[in-house]
């Protein structure tokens, strides 16, 4: 094995510095996609969780409870499908359906739908873990169903949901680099362009370092949250 050649083509500092501005641009796109996906995905997941719990209430007519089936199917498919497959299918399929949205928004919408599915399951488990007595007590105090959810159940559910939620949020943020496969100019795509221009892998290593610097604090944070909540 040629060690000298390996170092030259993976850790060439000059090339890394040359491509730093382009990589920084890509990093910004990655952060944009991640931010949008997290905000929209969590909001949608929360709404879905409350809807699913509300649909399952005892005393609902049977057809109302059946409305859960399509929602459950959506959640399960998102959990079963690799996000890259969803991304490629959506990206290729949309134009055939007469929908023309940019690569950026195709990527964002896929991540939102994937995260919302996982988040809704996590929130739902959280809501269901809150003791029934809480609901009964709040309702007997005169709060409406939605008020009880908003002020009593969801804040308690959130605590239970936090550890699995943080680790899922990190995994979705890491998945954002999949967007480069459909040509979004994110950090990884910029690194690939760098490789193509220089016949040298250093831009990819520089990108890997940037990704690690970005995500390492988050990974540590999620471990901290997990340990805190276990006590």
């Amino acid at each position, binding site marked *: 094995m040629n060690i000298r050649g390996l170092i030259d083509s993976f850790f060439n500092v000059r090339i890394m510095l040359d491509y730093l501005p382009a990589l920084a641009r890509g990093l910004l796109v990655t952060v944009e996609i991640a931010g949008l996906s997290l905000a929209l995905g969590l909001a949608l997941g929360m709404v879905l969780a409350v809807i699913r719990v509300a649909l399952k209430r005892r005393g609902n007519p049977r057809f109302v409870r059946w409305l859960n089936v399509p929602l459950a199917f959506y959640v399960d498919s998102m959990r079963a499908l690799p996000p890259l497959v969803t991304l490629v299918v959506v990206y290729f399929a949309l134009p055939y359906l007469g929908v023309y949205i940019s690569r950026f928004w195709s990527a964002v919408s896929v991540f939102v739908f994937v995260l919302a599915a996982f988040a809704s399951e996590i929130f739902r488990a959280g809501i269901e873990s809150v003791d029934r007595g809480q609901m009964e007590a709040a309702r007997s105090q005169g709060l409406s169903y939605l008020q009880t959810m908003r002020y009593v159940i969801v804040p308690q559910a959130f605590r239970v949901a936090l550890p699995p939620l943080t680790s899922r949020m990190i995994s979705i943020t890491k998945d954002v680099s999949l967007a480069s496969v459909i040509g979004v100019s994110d950090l990884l795509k910029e690194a690939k362009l760098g490789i193509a221009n220089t016949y040298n892998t250093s831009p990819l290593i520089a990108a890997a370092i940037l*990704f*690690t610097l970005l995500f390492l604090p988050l*990974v540590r944070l999620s471990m901290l949250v997990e340990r805190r909540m276990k006590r």
Partner: protein
Amino acid sequence: MSEFIHNFFNAEIMAKSWKIILVGLSNTVQLAIVALICAAILGLLLAVIRGLKNKVLDALIIVYVDLFRALPTIVLFMIVYYMLPFFGLSFPLFWAAVVALTVNGAAYFEEIFRAGIEAIDRGQWEAARSLGLDFRQTMIKVILPQAIRIVIPPATSNSLELVKTTVLASVISMPDLLYKAQQAAGLWYNPTPLVMAALIFLVLLWPFVRLTSYLERRMA
């Protein structure tokens, strides 16, 4: 509607691309099984090593685990791919994908197995050691059998994630299910093969999604 069927559920295209898709499916299944076994074994090994409480080894493993939990898997695949020429051109893509999946998956398995081992009461260690069992015997005969029960739910869901991650092999042009489906879709300029691939994943992995939900609920 007929246009919709023509584009996404085209029977003619399905008949034509069936064989290509099957080749991809077989590669994906092989990759998933081999990578899953390698990652679980490496993860278990690292978790057991951490049981030794050696400061240097611990620090090395923590750095390894943190690094690969932070690095997006697709980036890891690409790094492994570009390193291939340095290991000789004949290094097969299949094993490159196995290496990337193992290195990444073991980081997660280590965390899961370690949490399982640490959940076993210290008294078990002390009792076994005072009866004259050495570290290896205590680990294999006393600790691991008990840890397995705790570890099964998170390990199942991590295995599911690992199997889903195998599609990244398509990015380094290993002919897996997604790669072959994209090839067929490009060949006939029709997204039907992609829909087929998605349906195959759905049918194969759906039982495991249900299983993870069931196990998580039972443990809670």
